[in-house]
């Protein structure tokens, strides 16, 4: 079973009455449970469209996507997912505590369990002491922390984060790295898009690169750092030339594997890939 | 911080006060209608505040009609409705002339309503009564509205005119004196109104049996009309036509000529009848007067 499975996904937007723009063009990739995958690409590459299709916000014109084997069109697919959208402005008339209570209740959480979880998360994201001020008084970075807390609220098995470090200051980014590492240690799968390549390099197991709606590279970070001087140089060259000169180290051969693969050790998986 | 809001607020209030101060003396003055019009044209502040109070008075006047019918709304019948014979029949009491002769209810009667079931629902849910057989609530209920509209705008002539009529009708014994009292207040506030002079004269002539006293007011009313005609007697055909078509103008002339006849002023009655026929085609009293005295009808001026 894959945490995320995307097969030949195509997402289009109408531009005129008769023409459409292919934001995502036949993209396929998989994310295994427990992996941290960075989703890279320049602005307009199709990252957010892919994520929207993954979350069922956008209907794909072809291909399919599943989360833990459940088609994304079904509400149940999102029951084990925490999602952070790019720069959301949480209700200016609610406090962070009320915002999290609202999302928690929508997830079926309630009572003291919910209160305790919110209290714990507010400390984790650095909003302790700000829980009862209105969201409108919070800075953009603080609002992003509220967003991170709501994504973590229901103890998800998969975190999908769009431009996760947007609006965060250096301390916020450091705190975020700590949270992501803690979630990884807990076994949570993390799939996130970011323009902060250093962050991707530090946190991710694997990167997937999109350009003009197509998947142009898929590499293990550990392999990449052996072959390139820096991730940033590699990324810039990749996008400018439009082609990947490096050996593709993504688990290409595993795409059609059955779920028994998950039971293998990390070493076995790496061997299979290489 | 709050001071930043307080300063402009106080400034705004001061400006408001200044404007009111500039406008109020003109508004509180009791000019005749023409004079008032001139002041309104010259002073924008007076004009704006005047528009507001006139609008409020007009709104109240509009509601008064509803009040008399317990909230039922009437409208003028369309031409096709009139042609199809859907007309307002005379109703129980003597107030029929407050309706136009071709008025009908906004929610139609079942035989004119194509909606059948939905029509029944609307007739049940909304204040509705068949205008052909309808009556009125206690007219005294609407009187405060007239008191209020004339208090709001002392130059709202319709309020005094219609209000005095209601004062007259509301009492079972037809209280003419109270109606005259209300009209006298209206005349004091609007000495240039021919309508109020005409109505005052009408009550004296028709209800008090005092033609001499009535003549004083009716003569004033006609003089106002003549002054107005002389002043606005240009080539604006539509305006003149409207003036002549005005039922109030016609009634004023009729009442005046009738009062002249009743006070045995033969020569004057003939002279004014000829004048009335000359300028005013539907001059029933003028025609009748000339016929009574066996005189030929003058040729009416082409309009």
């Amino acid at each position, binding site marked *: 079973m894959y945490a995320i499975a995307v097969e030949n996904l195509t997402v289009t937007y109408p531009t005129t009455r008769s023409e459409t723009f292919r934001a995502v063009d036949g993209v396929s990739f998989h994310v295994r449970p427990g992996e941290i995958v960075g989703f890279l690409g320049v602005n307009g590459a199709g990252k957010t469209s892919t994520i929207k299709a993954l979350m069922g916000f956008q209907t794909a014109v072809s291909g399919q996507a599943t989360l833990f084997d459940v088609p994304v069109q079904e509400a149940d697919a999102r029951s084990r997912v925490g*999602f952070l959208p790019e720069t959301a402005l949480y209700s200016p008339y609610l406090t962070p505590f009320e915002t999290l209570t609202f999302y928690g209740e929508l997830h079926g959480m309630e009572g003291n369990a919910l209160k305790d979880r919110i209290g714990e998360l507010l400390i984790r994201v650095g909003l302790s002491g700000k829980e009862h001020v209105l969201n409108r008084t919070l800075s953009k970075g603080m609002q992003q922390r509220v967003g991170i807390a709501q994504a973590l609220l229901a103890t998800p098995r998969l975190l999908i984060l769009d431009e996760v470090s947007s609006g965060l200051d250096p301390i916020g980014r450091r705190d975020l790295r700590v949270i992501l590492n803690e979630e990884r240690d807990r076994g949570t799968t993390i799939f996130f898009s970011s323009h902060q390549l250093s962050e991707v390099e530090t946190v991710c197991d694997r990167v997937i690169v999109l350009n003009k709606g197509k998947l142009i590279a898929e590499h293990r970070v550990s392999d990449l750092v052996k072959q390139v001087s820096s991730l940033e140089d590699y990324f810039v060259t990749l996008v400018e030339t439009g082609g990947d000169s490096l050996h593709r180290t993504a688990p290409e051969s595993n795409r059609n594997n059955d779920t028994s693969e998950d039971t293998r050790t990390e070493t076995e998986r790496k061997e299979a890939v290489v | 911080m709050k001071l930043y809001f307080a300063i402009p607020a106080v400034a705004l209030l001061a400006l408001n006060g200044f404007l009111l101060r500039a406008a109020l003396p003109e508004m509180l003055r009791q000019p005749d209608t023409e004079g008032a019009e001139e002041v309104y044209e010259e002073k924008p502040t007076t004009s704006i505040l005047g528009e507001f109070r006139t609008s409020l008075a007009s709104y109240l006047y509009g509601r008064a009609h509803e009040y008399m019918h317990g909230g039922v709304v009437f409208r003028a019948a369309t031409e096709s409705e009139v042609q199809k014979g859907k007309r307002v029949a005379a109703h129980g009491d003597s107030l029929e002339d407050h309706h136009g002769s071709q008025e009908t209810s906004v929610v139609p009667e079942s035989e004119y309503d194509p909606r059948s079931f939905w029509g029944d629902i609307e007739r049940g849910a909304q204040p509705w009564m068949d205008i052909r057989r309808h009556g009125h609530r206690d007219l005294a209920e609407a009187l405060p509205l007239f008191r209020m509209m004339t208090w709001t705008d002392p130059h709202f002539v319709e309020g005094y005119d219609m209000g005095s009529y209601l004062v007259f009708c509301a009492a079972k014994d037809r209280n003419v004196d109270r109606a005259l009292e209300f009209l006298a207040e209206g005349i004091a506030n609007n000495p240039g109104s021919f309508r109020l002079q005409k109505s005052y004269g009408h009550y004296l002539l028709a209800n008090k049996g005092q033609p001499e006293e009535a003549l004083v007011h009716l003569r004033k009313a006609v003089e106002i009309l003549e002054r107005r005609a002389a002043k606005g007697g240009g080539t604006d055909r539509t305006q003149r036509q409207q003036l002549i078509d005005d039922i109030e103008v016609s009634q004023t002339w009729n009442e005046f000529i009738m009062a002249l006849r009743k006070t045995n002023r033969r020569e004057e009655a003939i002279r004014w009848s000829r004048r009335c026929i000359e300028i005013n085609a539907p001059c029933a009293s003028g025609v009748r007067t000339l016929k009574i005295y066996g005189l030929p009808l003058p040729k009416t001026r082409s309009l």
Partner: protein
Amino acid sequence: MTPTLRVWRTLIRGSFLEMVRRKELYVLVILTVLMVVGAYSFTFFGVSGLEIFVKDMAFTAVGLFSTILGVTIATRQIPEEISRRTIYPLLARPISRAQLLTGKFVASWVLTLASFALLLGVSLLVLTLLRLPLKVILIQYIWLKAVSFLWLSAICICLSVYVSSSAAFTLGLLLALGSGAFTRSFLLAYGDGVPILNWLIAILYGFLPHFTLFDIARKVVYGWDPIAWWIPLALTVYGIAISAFWLKLALNRFEKMAL
């Protein structure tokens, strides 16, 4: 509690907190009181016997302001979530779009009803203090208002998923406050034209909202007796059916909407 009811309850609670913290409701409550007391204040200047006028002012204020609030609340439910981008964390929960839309609809209805109750409560309090009693027909007035708000919320939610938020607000307000004038114009035009035109008018008439049928405020003001009970019952069935129609239309669009 079923998942759908839980979603509805949460959405109502969230929207309620927002409404309470916005200023518009308080402004309208104050305006209502000012209108009623203002109308009554004429008695201090020697104009007595204004009972009907004061009641008229009170019910005009309650009807007008609750309608404005109803349109405002309903037309911003979905567009505001989209513009703030909070629609994403909302739909990232295991809830369907149908649950979200119906939840927003129920929240709009409940909040409009709450605003109406507050405005009416304040007005009734003022009228009671002024010793201006009302008749039993008031119960039917409240009942029919509740049904009309159901319809108003459904139309406004529907408009808000088809057109922009501001356009939905304008159209909603136009339909809510102008429907009486529209339907009366159609009624006047009916019968004057050729049969085909009459059919067209009848169809258009059927599609137009008939909020005036649900507003018996004038009967309350003028102290009429309660209306026949089959009328509120028939209007309730009609109101629920037509609300379901508008909601289904909204759902058709919302479920296919790219967010």
